[in-house]
């Protein structure tokens, strides 16, 4: 049974007060709060097992290695990965996405990696609703290789323009990279449609699941893409850890990205051979405690059940859309229907800058985000400087949504 009040007790920060009033944290799309179980796991790691992994033959080293690799197993199970070796730990989503983009550009100078090469005449496609972390890496890849950079536009309701998918993704498309759930709009994209089109033209597919992984069951086999990226700090885990999942067959053939300890097979001054995945892509000492902490977050979520998480958040979204849309002069930026959208709601208020809205809400204890949410093309598309964004998580209550609505009305009064 999903009981939000029980869940809230697991998150120590939720008892905090700000400006003398209890915290109402509605910024989970930016980063999530952490349950006590994750903090205990971090502490236990450092107090009892801390050592470098893979390299050491002593007891602490073995314990740390086991814990770290068990965290990989947990991630693999959480996303239904066919193989544990398909789970690469990175520092965040951004690194995961850059990893793929750099590996592809490294293919240009790596013998045997011809199939991954991108160059003039090829194109790389994203969508107009991408987070900068799934946009800039591809722009830079295009710049490095001479490929064309394209995007699929969005409509007034924050949905991809369907007819543009077949047009922009063509037989010269090498990569289609798209966000599963938009952090700026809440839109959940039609993965089957997008992956289907990419497969039809032989393009690689990269899904940015940073905003979907925390909120719905994620099954990489069902998604059908080649790569899926997400980030620990949004998934109730620690900062400093992210995940790239990739098909083994691809990871095993791709050139390395970062060079260093752990990613090699053997190093010689005249040349180096590289380890098999996942280690090939994990240069240097990994984020050991962080990966183990992410494993604890996954255990926590799994105990709750991602289906329950999704159902809870769908309820919140429906309620919040309904209540917010009653506020005069408030405009939802993104889908107004709760269908195929996540628990992240952007809006503007006529005559009041989003920074003022969110700053004043903060003075009432309500934490929301204002800005372009690292997805500036979305704001450009709608001709606005920024939005205010409220986003929910497993610990969010309808009472908090009521507080938000009341807060927005108070802001309107002050600026009226």
């Amino acid at each position, binding site marked *: 049974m999903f009981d939000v009040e029980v869940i809230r007790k697991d998150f120590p920060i939720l008892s905090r007060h700000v400006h003398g009033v209890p915290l109402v944290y509605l910024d989970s799309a930016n980063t999530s709060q952490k349950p006590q179980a994750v903090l205990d796991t971090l502490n236990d790691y450092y107090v009892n097992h801390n050592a470098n992994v893979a390299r050491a033959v002593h007891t602490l080293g073995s314990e740390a290695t086991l814990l770290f690799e068990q965290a990989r197993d947990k991630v693999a199970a959480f996303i239904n990965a066919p193989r544990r070796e398909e789970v690469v730990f990175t520092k965040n989503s951004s690194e995961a996405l850059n990893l793929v983009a750099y590996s592809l550009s490294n293919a240009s100078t790596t013998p045997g990696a011809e199939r991954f090469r991108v160059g003039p005449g090829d194109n790389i496609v994203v969508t107009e609703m991408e987070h900068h972390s799934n946009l800039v890496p591809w722009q830079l890849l295009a710049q490095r290789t001479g490929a064309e950079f394209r995007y699929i536009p969005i409509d007034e309701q924050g949905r991809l323009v369907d007819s543009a998918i077949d047009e922009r993704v063509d037989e010269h498309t090498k990569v289609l990279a798209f966000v599963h759930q938009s952090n700026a709009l809440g839109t959940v994209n039609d993965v089957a449609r997008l992956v289907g089109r990419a497969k039809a033209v032989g393009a690689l597919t990269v899904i940015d699941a940073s905003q979907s992984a925390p909120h719905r069951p994620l099954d990489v086999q069902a998604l059908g893409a080649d790569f899926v990226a997400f980030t620990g700090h949004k998934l109730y885990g620690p900062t400093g850890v992210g995940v790239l999942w990739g098909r083994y067959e691809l990871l095993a053939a791709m050139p390395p990205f970062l060079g260093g300890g752990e990613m090699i097979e053997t190093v010689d001054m005249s040349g180096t051979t590289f380890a098999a995945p996942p280690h090939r892509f994990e240069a240097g000492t990994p984020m050991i405690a962080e990966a183990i902490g992410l494993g604890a977050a996954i255990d926590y979520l799994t105990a709750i059940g991602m289906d329950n998480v999704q159902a809870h958040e769908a309820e919140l979204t429906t309620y919040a859309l309904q209540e917010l849309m009653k506020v005069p002069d408030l405009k939802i930026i993104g889908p107004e229907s709760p269908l195929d959208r996540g628990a992240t709601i952007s809006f503007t208020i006529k005559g009041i800058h989003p*920074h*003022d809205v969110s*700053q004043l809400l903060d003075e009432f204890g309500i934490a929301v985000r204002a800005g372009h949410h690292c997805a500036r093309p979305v704001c450009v598309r709608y001709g606005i400087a920024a939005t205010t964004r409220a986003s929910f998580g497993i610990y969010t209550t309808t009472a908090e949504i009521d507080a938000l609505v009341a807060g927005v009305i108070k802001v309107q009064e002050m*600026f009226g």
Partner: protein
Amino acid sequence: MSVTDSMYQQIILDHYKHPNNRGELSQFDAEVHHVNPTCGDEVTLRVRLADGEIAELGWVGEGCSISQASTSVMSDLVVGSSVSDALELQEKFLQLMQSQGHPDLSEEEIDALDDAIAFEGVSQYPARVKCALLGWMAMKSAVAEATASAESRSASTQAGE
């Protein structure tokens, strides 16, 4: 939360609703356009100098109340003051903004900052400091540009002698 704790002092809201010196100067020595890329706040500002003083300053802009009110307060304070006093005040305001909520100002400095002291609360919010500084930075640039062009004009006049 008491009203005095709020970043949104009444003075700020008043200046936001009724900004001073808003408008375009038709005669000016320099024009600058400053943008706060993370927020989209913008200000276009023109100045006219005369006898080492800021004779006129006009601005137009868009953005949050902090950026717009701060520009309005700034314009009130510097119009009619000497260039050097204006730049000194800009320095003080910059210090205030960088104080992270713990300004270390003398009575005299507080007096000089006048209405601008209302922005003290902003200094606790790194993301908003740039908003409050936008107009002040624009003024500084504009004055520097106007001074430089005045100097080069007088230099070329001298060279022509």
